[in-house]
């Protein structure tokens, strides 16, 4: 058991409990030493998990867990870097980081707690809220179309793209292990019930729509098929949409070929050669 001084503050029935359980098992199952796992938490209900895990962690600014994680990975690429973030942080406030991390295939595992609401701020619309839904900030109904993060990731060079359902803990924890072991950008968009601020999308609502990609005969090496699955409207496929093996960002940085940057000693810096051009 992990010894933690704080207990979760989530509402009863919150999907975060399930994700938390799946995360703990999924990380242990990687077999990676705990001190080399580092979790970057965004702001939101999910981010409050920062005080409930016994791993090195950084509770960052809203939307910024993504670049903060990249900075740490670039200077110590022996770390396994996980981002815990919500749909607002990843697809709204941090949207530009989400898009650009994929382009670089940064070796970061992003777990999006997608409950289709801003729940820590008591239930406003988020980038994934369906059109027409009435929330506190959209009492006349949301005008925008919801973002499709899976389709975006498939179109934008994501190298590991999955969606899972929070309450399926064993399935999710296995996917987390797989994502952390994937070398490169890994996204798991986790559908998370929020019974308090989004009671419409209940467990039952999800159960009626979810289908497993494995049961649909989907092969994760087929980008076009993955995109078609991502665009389905009548059903919500879960599972691994797409995966490809390609070098991660840090593997392509020449300056990191000799090992993690933090191990390079700065005790003595010799500028003799570099200053020659200033003579």
């Amino acid at each position, binding site marked *: 058991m992990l010894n933690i001084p704080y207990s979760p503050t989530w509402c009863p029935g919150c999907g975060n409990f399930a994700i938390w359980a799946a995360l703990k098992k999924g990380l242990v199952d990687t077999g990676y030493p705990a001190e080399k796992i580092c979790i970057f938490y965004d702001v939101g209900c999910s981010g409050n998990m920062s*005080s409930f895990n016994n791993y090195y962690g950084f509770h*960052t600014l809203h939307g910024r867990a993504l670049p903060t994680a990249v900075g740490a990975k670039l200077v110590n690429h022996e770390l396994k870097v996980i981002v815990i973030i919500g749909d607002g942080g990843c697809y709204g406030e941090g949207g530009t980081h989400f898009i650009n991390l994929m382009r670089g295939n940064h070796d970061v595992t992003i777990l999006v707690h997608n409950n289709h609401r801003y729940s820590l701020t008591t239930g406003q619309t988020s980038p994934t809220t369906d059109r027409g839904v009435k929330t506190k900030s959209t009492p006349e109904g949301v005008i925008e179309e919801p973002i499709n993060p899976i389709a975006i990731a498939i179109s934008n060079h994501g190298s590991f793209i999955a969606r899972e359902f929070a309450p399926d803990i064993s399935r999710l924890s296995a996917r987390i292990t797989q994502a952390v072991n994937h070398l490169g950008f890994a996204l798991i968009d986790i559908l998370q019930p929020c019974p308090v601020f989004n009671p419409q999308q209940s467990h039952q609502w999800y159960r009626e729509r979810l289908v497993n990609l494995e049961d649909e005969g989907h092969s994760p090496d087929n980008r076009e098929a993955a995109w078609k699955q991502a665009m389905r409207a009548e059903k919500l496929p879960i599972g691994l949409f797409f995966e490809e093996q390609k070098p991660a960002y840090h593997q392509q940085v020449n*300056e990191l070929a000799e090992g993690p940057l933090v191990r390079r000693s700065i005790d003595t810096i010799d*500028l003799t050669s570099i200053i020659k051009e200033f003579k």
Partner: protein
Amino acid sequence: MLAKQSFVWKVAGAAGEGIMTTGLLFSKTCARHGLYIFDYTEYPSLIRGGHNTYQVHTATDPVFAQKNTVDLLIALNKEGIELHLKELSTDSLLVFDTEHQKIEPEKYNLKAKLLDLPMIRLAKESGGEEVMANNVALGASVYLAGLDLTVLNQIITEVFIDKGPKIINLNQQAAQRGYEFVKSKYQPLFTAIKQETSHLTMTGNEAIALGALAGGLQFYAAYPMTPSSSILHFLAAKAREAKIVVKHAEDEISVVNMAIGASFAGARAMVGTSGGGFCYMVEALGLAGIAELPLVIVESQRAGPALGLPTWTAQGDLKFVINASHGEFPRIVLAPGDAKEAFELARLALILAEKYQIPVILLSDKYLSESRFNITLEATTFANNRFGLTTNPAPDQTGFFPRYKLADSPVSLRSTPGTTGGTYIANADEHDEYGLSNEDSNMRTAQVAKRQQKLKEALAEIPFQFWQEEPKAVLTFISFGSTKGPIQGARQTLAGEGIATCHLNLSWIWPFPKDQVQKIVTSYPNVLVVEGNNEGQLASLIAEQTGFMMENKLNRYDGSPFYPEEIVDYVKHSI
């Protein structure tokens, strides 16, 4: 005839015509002769077609700033004359090319001497192309400045080494033709005696980049923004040799958060931007404050607000960088006044950031960042100590390491991810000793007090500020950052005319060197605060910190730096 002690050279023409390279080659030729130099450039925010200038002020004695009047003006087009009429005196020589440009110098009623130099034709005759016309002008300039052509040729070889021997030869031949053409018609305007020198020349930005490397920089992130971009370019080019990682991220918000992530993981990290980009970084500045992570931010000012004058200088962000962010946390603000200070303070910034686990802002401006200075480095190898990092952290009964321990010292030991036993949370929320979110009133009060105490301890770091004193002074200048040079230049002139003055230039802005400033404003006569903004931000800061109102102010905020001549005029009229 008495030899002139200083020589002011300028090349002016359209952007894209190689003005900057031409200026650099002339400046290096002067410096290689053992002369002092100060180079000042102007350019609009355009890729091509705008008006560019490069001025080299060179002398046998130290030079500190650009000058109003030029001795030799190379006009590569009509604007090169028309926009600089006021800079020509009866002693000036104007060089142009009537074969190439439809220039009618007689219509300007010029006092200056004229030299029609067929730059394009000579370049082509020497086997080169039109773009090598600048080398013809360079060769002519070298003759007129009394410099050695072999030195220019050597510098052409070094600067164009990557372009191969053919290009180097053509450039040298063009220079030779220019040199010979002028030699047959004119006497040199200046005499330079070649001397051995250990001086280097570099821009403020290059000095910042080198100082940061000396200070153990490991991770640099930036998003391009004039006038900070040349730090990014330089460090990116040297990343492999210096074994650092340089990241051009998608925006300034990503830049600063990446750097904070890098710092959290144990690297010395720095970012560079201008005022607009710094606006984006401000929330993260507070994050570095509350999470107690070292971070260096280079903020090279340009004239704001918003896009302002993108390629022009200003000192308008002084109060912004001192006060940026909501909430309270300690920071250090340093404002180098020349390349030497830029090198030293960039290095110090990285050291202080780690020592106190706080953000340090290095405040530059276009004038310092992109002007070129002489600089002498006492050493080329630099030793660094590490501060506050533990390699064998021990968790307590909670399983966490008390990273933010409340103890006698406000600077608590820091563990980094990957280290067994050091588990803690860096937290943007207020937190307890382990970094776990905590809203308890006593813990909040204690953690704020812990952080704020660091600023009090950092007061001991403040060195003596740049202070020049003359007996029987009639006026005391106070300035900060890059205004140091123009005031030094003005004081040279004033001293020559028997007007004694004193000068305090602040390179350490925050925590404010209150005692030093207070002593000067109360003990020295007729204080004049000179700064590149409208509101008199330094004057107001001095008043706030010392209780003494600063009544005499000289402000400039049109995008140009101060010129020594205007300061001299102001002083003569005010005393």
